[in-house]
């Protein structure tokens, strides 16, 4: 169980850190095993920052992140290494996730160096092949290749295979399919579904609402660094209460609608204000459905 409690992130910017930029404001949520939680929102809403804080690639300014009750923000270097045994991530751009001058399977080798230094060659090889097969990759076709020789879908699946080499409980998937084409996209998405069935908790960061709807049980909608609406996917997408959520849902192009026929007019939204102020609190609007007060 991964818990975020009142997490804030501010960056120091400007010369000698004289100014402050708040990227995430008072975000709290939990992800249970076997659950996919989607975080959606516009660019700059802080959804990627949340994912990176869960992965501890960015420090938390205020608040705590707990895994199975243990505070990981105070874990230290060794504690972090153990944390990564249980929490792993896959990023947006498959081609940037691999160092272009090395072979792609080096990402698997790095896991061995840190976490399985005593495992023998043949035993490791068997483990790698099993893991690759479990994400639908042919080991012979992907091992020993350079990143530019593999497709985006293959690279993303290899990163998931890398995460599966460890006994992970939580996977942070940050826009992992937004750079893939439609047909590979659904394969990777279905793979996430299978992982969920196997008891993995997935934090699925995306800007694509239809993907969030397809894969996740619960959804969080973020704007200006704060949560504006959260709850069960069907509730939030079926009956959006916050004006921003309504705008967001209405802005998804439908397959059978033309631009000229679109009658939707965006609602007036509150402009970005003082980000150091606590955001509007979430109130329960329905069973499993919370929304922030608008305006």
């Amino acid at each position, binding site marked *: 169980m991964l818990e975020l409690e009142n997490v804030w992130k501010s960056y120091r910017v400007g010369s000698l*850190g004289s100014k402050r930029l708040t990227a995430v404001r008072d975000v709290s949520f939990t992800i249970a095993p076997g659950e996919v939680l989607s975080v959606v929102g516009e660019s700059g809403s802080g959804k990627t920052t949340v994912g990176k804080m869960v*992965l501890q690639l960015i420090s938390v300014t205020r608040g705590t992140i707990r895994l199975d009750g243990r505070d990981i923000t105070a874990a230290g270097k060794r504690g972090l290494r153990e944390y990564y045994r249980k929490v792993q991530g896959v990023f947006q751009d498959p081609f940037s996730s691999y*160092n272009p001058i090395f072979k792609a399977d080096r990402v698997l080798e790095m896991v061995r*160096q840190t976490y399985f230094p005593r495992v023998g060659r043949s035993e490791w090889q068997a483990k790698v092949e099993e893991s690759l097969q479990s994400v639908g990759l042919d080991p012979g076709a992907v091992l020993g290749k350079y990143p530019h020789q593999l497709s985006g879908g293959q690279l993303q699946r290899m990163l998931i295979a890398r995460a599966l080499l460890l006994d992970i409980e939580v996977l942070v998937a940050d826009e992992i399919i937004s750079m893939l084409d439609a047909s590979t996209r659904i394969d990777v998405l279905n793979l996430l579904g299978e992982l969920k069935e196997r008891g993995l908790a997935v934090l699925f960061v995306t800007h694509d609402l239809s993907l969030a709807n397809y894969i996740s049980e619960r959804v969080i909608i973020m704007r200006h660094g704060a949560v504006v609406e959260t709850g069960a996917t069907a509730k939030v997408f079926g009956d959006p209460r916050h004006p921003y959520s309504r705008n967001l849902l209405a802005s998804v192009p439908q397959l059978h609608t033309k631009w000229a026929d679109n009658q939707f007019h965006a609602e007036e939204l509150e402009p970005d204000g003082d980000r150091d102020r606590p955001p509007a609190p979430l109130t329960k609007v329905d069973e499993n459905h919370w929304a922030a007060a608008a305006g």
Partner: protein
Amino acid sequence: MTTDATLKSDSVGESRERLYFAFRNPKVVIGLAIVLGLLLVGLIAPLLLSAEPTQQFDAKSASPSGEHWFGTTYFGNDVFTQFAYGIRSSFMVGALGGGIAFVIGLTVGFTAGYRGGLVDEFLNMLTNVVLVLPALVVLIVLSTYLENRGPVSQAIIIGVFSWPWVARAVRAQTFTLRNRDYVDLAKLSGKRAPQIIVREVMPNMASYLLMSVILLFGGAILFAAMLDFIGLGPTDSISLGSMMQQSMAWSALHLGLWWWFVPPGLAITAIVGGLYITNVGLDEVFNPKLREM
């Protein structure tokens, strides 16, 4: 299957491909040949020569002959002997001074670029301060303070003053590379910052680093020659620059002793020129867009 085979062959190694282009690039070959040829002279000739560079022969101001290949000086020193020892010390100063500058520049650049924040602000300030110091003036002051100057102290002084531009370039490159996802992935694999810098960031700028080593090496040789020429060279040994300084001090030009100053002058020009030609050639090797078809 055929596509698979071609894919394999182009993956065999970019490094081997680069080596292939490097040895077919006339600039690299010519430049390296000049530099390595002179290096061999500096390494081997002093071992074979019986005379010492300070030894004075009876024949003074003699023109080049079979006995004295490059003639002798006003005092009867054998110019070729001095030349060979001078090349040796020039290479020494170049390697040591360039090496020191490279190590400092790399350390500062990687630390500033990778850590960012206040560390970067401080290191960047330090870099800029050293960059705007009038290095020549400081070097002259420092050199005059040192009573006994050898090539080593000279190299250290040069090294301490020529790292800033490497540091700046490395810092800038590191800034762009440290935000790549593969750096994050290495962190998620439990790798520490020094490992990430060496294994993930550095290989991506290897070509740049190689070229900056070459330029620092040449720059240190040139700087040393300049210091020598204004009389701040080594006090206990001979160098190419101090040979030229001596020849000028004893009016070799007016006495017509061209063999005294032409060889060291040509050697400095050839070493530095050779290094720059190699560098231009390597640029073409690493950047295919510059290759002449």
